[in-house]
């Protein structure tokens, strides 16, 4: 459902990675690891259409990302829930409204009421629901970002370091949420440095491991 063929990406002059291929199958659970600065975030941005590949082909749900109209890209993004490494909230709105935003912009606001409270409860933000994102701690923001990524129950969930700032117990809780969604048939792709998280996931689902180093993507890596 997400295909990368011979993709390269360069910020300005120097190429970050080249001739990289990846095929993400529906219902799979993928981890992406690699040293800091290897380009994990960049790769994820290609997958949710925030960046366009310098060369090669990125197909999202069968459509070439480079050829999509702006509206088509918006509709594609609605099928991919994203936890951004830098969270990306509307800082003037309370957490609850930020979490509901993907429903809001896709005209499904009426669905918010039922799920929203449960979801916010699950990520442990009931008390903070009416605060604004800048008032939250780093870990609380990541939890809010995860809640926002899954609120629409999207086909694909992409999470960039979703547990970077949360304690072990909370990261297990967030993992459980992602595993549950995966069991419901959703595709999950997580970039992380957290080996313990990967181990915990491997014990619950059939998770595959990808490693991005020195511009190359290795798949089928074992811990």
């Amino acid at each position: 459902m997400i295909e990368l063929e011979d993709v390269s990406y360069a910020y300005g002059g120097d190429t970050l990675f080249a001739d990289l291929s990846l095929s993400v199958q529906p219902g799979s659970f993928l981890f992406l690891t690699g040293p800091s600065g290897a380009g994990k975030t960049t790769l994820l941005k290609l997958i949710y259409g925030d960046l366009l590949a310098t060369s090669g082909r990125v197909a999202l749900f069968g459509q070439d990302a480079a050829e999509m109209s702006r509206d088509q890209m918006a509709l594609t993004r609605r099928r991919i829930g994203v936890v951004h490494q830098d969270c990306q909230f509307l800082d003037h709105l309370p957490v609850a409204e930020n979490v509901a935003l993907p429903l809001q912009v896709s005209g499904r606001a009426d669905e918010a009421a039922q799920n929203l409270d449960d979801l916010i409860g699950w990520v442990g933000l009931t008390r903070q629901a009416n605060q604004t994102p800048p008032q939250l701690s780093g870990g609380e923001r990541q939890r809010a970002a995860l809640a926002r990524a899954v609120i629409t129950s999207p086909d694909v969930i992409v999470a960039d370091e979703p547990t970077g700032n949360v304690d072990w117990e909370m990261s297990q809780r967030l993992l459980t949420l992602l595993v549950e969604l995966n069991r419901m048939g959703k595709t999950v792709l997580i970039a992380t440095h957290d080996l313990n998280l990967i181990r915990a996931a491997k014990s619950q689902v059939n998770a595959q491991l990808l490693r991005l180093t020195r511009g190359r993507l290795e798949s089928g890596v074992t811990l």
Partner: protein
Amino acid sequence: MTGRLSALWTLLRGDGQADRAVPPSGFTARLTVFTAAAMAFLAVFALAFSVSSGRLADRWAQELARTSTLRISAPAVEVEAQTAAALQVLEQTPGIAEARALTEAEEQALLEPWFGPDLPLDALPMPQLIEIVETEAGYDATGLRARLQAEVPGAVLDDHTRWRDPLVDAANRLRTLGWAALLLILGALAAMVTLAAQSALSANAQVIRVLRLVGARDSYIARAFVRRFTLRAAAGAVAGTAAGMACILLIPEGPADGFLTGLGFTGPGWLVPLLIPVLCAVIAFLATRLAANATLRSHL
């Protein structure tokens, strides 16, 4: 056009939540309202100016076009004969509907405003006046003058055009100036709303980015801005128009053809300035939409 209108309607019906996505910006908001109010206020005057000079031009043109005067200055003994001769010439001239010698009483009435009611007309060498009413087609003034010169030496034809034309011309030009001023005012409003919208759009670049990342279409994002600026411009324009109309109402009344006292609207003409807020809202809507679409296209 109907597409535009229905877009405007959807917009005004509103989506409060989409509005909340863009943080309120107190200062630019107040500036936009103020600008729209000031421009609408000026627009009311430009409109009044235009409408009034147009009315004046029409009235003058109409009143003066169809009449002229023949003046006979001759030694007292000849006046009667020359008047008869002149009337005969006029009767034979094509394009003249009616020619009539004014009576002494009428002449006195004409002079009264200048000399008072006790003017001893008999004691003064008064010229005899003949009032000429033209037909629709009008007469040939040069030909008539030539004939009169030959047959009625004391006759002077005053066909008013000497001073009528520049007056009507001036009034017409003032009307055009009024319309031009109105256009400029509305153009300036469009420019200012565009600037304000652009500044709001660039101040909210991060908001736009977040909305796009969660799958908002351009139209959704644009709507939040467009609705805001349209409503602000409309609100300001309503206030400005109301103030402008009130000021025009307060101009003291005077003779209907006085230019200054005649500035304003008459009867159903008072409905015309009510279009100004609508026009301002439409202008703000289009200006913001253009600005928003251009900005959004420049984002990935």
